[in-house]
């Protein structure tokens, strides 16, 4: 089975967020970068499918030099080889641009299954998986919590409000992974050593046949004009050192008379 998994390198979720000098992005100085957590579920699922069905797992990431570290991390988990999509023209890509880059890079490979995380933490767009499916004319199932792949079909469960949808699709197909799909493995020492020798192929816009004007900041549909810290909430009324009954009574009164939510 030929499987692709697409990952993104993102700031650690615990990182302190500072607005950059341009006022439109975060200041990444000193920020720890990690593989986006949902992508780890996608990598784990790809590896399990390879273990069951045989074949190859190829990873893709769009990003600057630093993204190679993220690819090395998942090569250590057991991914066979990686493609690092790196080009000055890719900088500032939104969901529209990233999906164009990934679709162009994967198109000639004819994968049977392409896996993504349901969204990258940070930008939280949740678009790229379904977009790539559309660009490659493949069916997709997003936010998947259970997956069964057999011969040429898949059966996936996805969560919707208050219910679970069971979806069946022929392969090839695109899946986006949600927490609950599996428990991602840690890289073993052997895996880490083996990863050093695995191939990371670097490809730019010309190599994958993408017009630079359709990606990066030049081709973006979602343009971040300004990035700000969220408006601070005014200081709350915190009831301290009161007995439970009086505190509960006062809180209920405030919620009814002042906040008007009861």
């Amino acid at each position, binding site marked *: 089975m030929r499987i692709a998994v697409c990952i993104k390198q993102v700031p650690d979720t615990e990182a302190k967020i500072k607005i950059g000098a341009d006022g439109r992005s975060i200041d990444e100085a000193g920020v720890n970068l990690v593989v986006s957590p949902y992508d780890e579920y996608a990598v784990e699922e790809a590896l399990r499918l390879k273990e069951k069905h045989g074949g190859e797992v190829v990873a893709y990431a769009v990003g600057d030099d630093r993204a190679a570290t993220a690819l090395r991390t998942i090569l250590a988990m057991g991914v066979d080889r990686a493609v690092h999509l790196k080009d000055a023209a890719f900088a500032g890509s939104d969901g529209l641009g990233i999906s164009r880059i990934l679709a162009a890079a994967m198109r000639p490979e004819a994968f049977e299954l392409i896996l993504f995380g349901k969204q990258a933490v940070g930008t939280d767009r949740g678009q790229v998986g379904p977009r790539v499916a559309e660009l490659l004319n493949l069916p997709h199932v997003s936010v998947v919590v259970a997956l069964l792949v057999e011969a040429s079909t898949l059966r996936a469960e996805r969560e919707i409000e*208050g219910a679970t949808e*069971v979806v069946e699709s022929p392969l090839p197909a695109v899946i986006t992974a949600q*927490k609950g799909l599996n428990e991602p493995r840690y890289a073993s020492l052997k895996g880490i050593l083996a990863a050093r020798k695995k191939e990371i192929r670097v490809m730019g816009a010309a190599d994958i046949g993408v017009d630079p004007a359709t990606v990066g900041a030049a081709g973006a549909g979602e343009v971040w004009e300004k990035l700000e*810290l969220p408006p601070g909430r005014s200081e709350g009324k915190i009831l301290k050192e009161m007995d439970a009954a009086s505190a509960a009574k006062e*809180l209920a009164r405030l919620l009814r008379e002042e906040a008007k939510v*009861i």
Partner: protein
Amino acid sequence: MGNVSGDILVFIESRLGLTKRSSLEALSEGRRAANALGSRLHALLIGSAVGGLAAGLASQGPDTVLVAEHEILGQYSPEAFASVLASAVRKTGTSAVFLSATALGRDLAARAAAKLEAGLASDCIEVEITGGELRVKRPVYSGRAVATVRFGTTPAFVSLRPNAFPVVQVSGRSPAVETLAVEVDLAKVRARTVEVRSGEGEDIDISEASSIVAGGRAMKGPENFGLIRDLARALGGAVGASRAAVDAGWIDHQCQVGQTGKVVAPGLYIACGISGAIQHLAGMSTSKVIVAINKDPEAPIFKIADYGIVGDLYEVLPKLTEEVRRLKEQ
């Protein structure tokens, strides 16, 4: 680019014969935007038998309601729904598409935007129109920053966070109801929903609730969630939980609020025994009124709380439930 000169189209989601409230929020916001632009507002219903829902949309003031019906559209299919939505956009000359950012809405928005080579701003909490240009705001980096977005492509796709926008009633409009011919080759739809299983969890799903009472690590075990449920019932709201409570197996993961759970924006969010880790705040910080009940006066949750009690939740919750019941009965 980015100027919205044409019409606005709002996708209306329905399930089991009922229009989702969050779609009425999106439609209300669409009306407001269309008024600011002097453009027309279309509502789009997609399903197997959804025409009957058209009349119920009149109070949110669409100029037209487009109805796309086909047997196979009775269950959500990204491929089929995206084709229908894209053809509705082309036919109406729409320059902005609004959807509620539900599970279905987020999925559909991405696939349809790709079909139309358009930009999409996901999970927005504010829509503004200035000088004929559309801008939206969306929380990013787990709610620790807010991006103001303009659009470099047309149409602009916008998904709106459920509960973040009001449903506004307008009177005196009777929209024209038009049938939209379904031109997609439905035989070519590959991914199909074969079953929908209702959640076995709680009564009300957190993403649609107007109030949520959530329990965290201090609940200590599944048996104590009864205290949370009692208060939620008294408020007519839903039961939520932190990751710690879900990972401990005390409550269904459908209830999880936060980065790896659901993002919610109810009118009232009561956090009980939840310290307020960044990952939890990411899921609830845009709630309108936040209440924290926690023993630890230094818990980070108090920093974003509008109201709070420093105290033992096992003593406070039963009293609060009693008090809420009493006030509701007045």
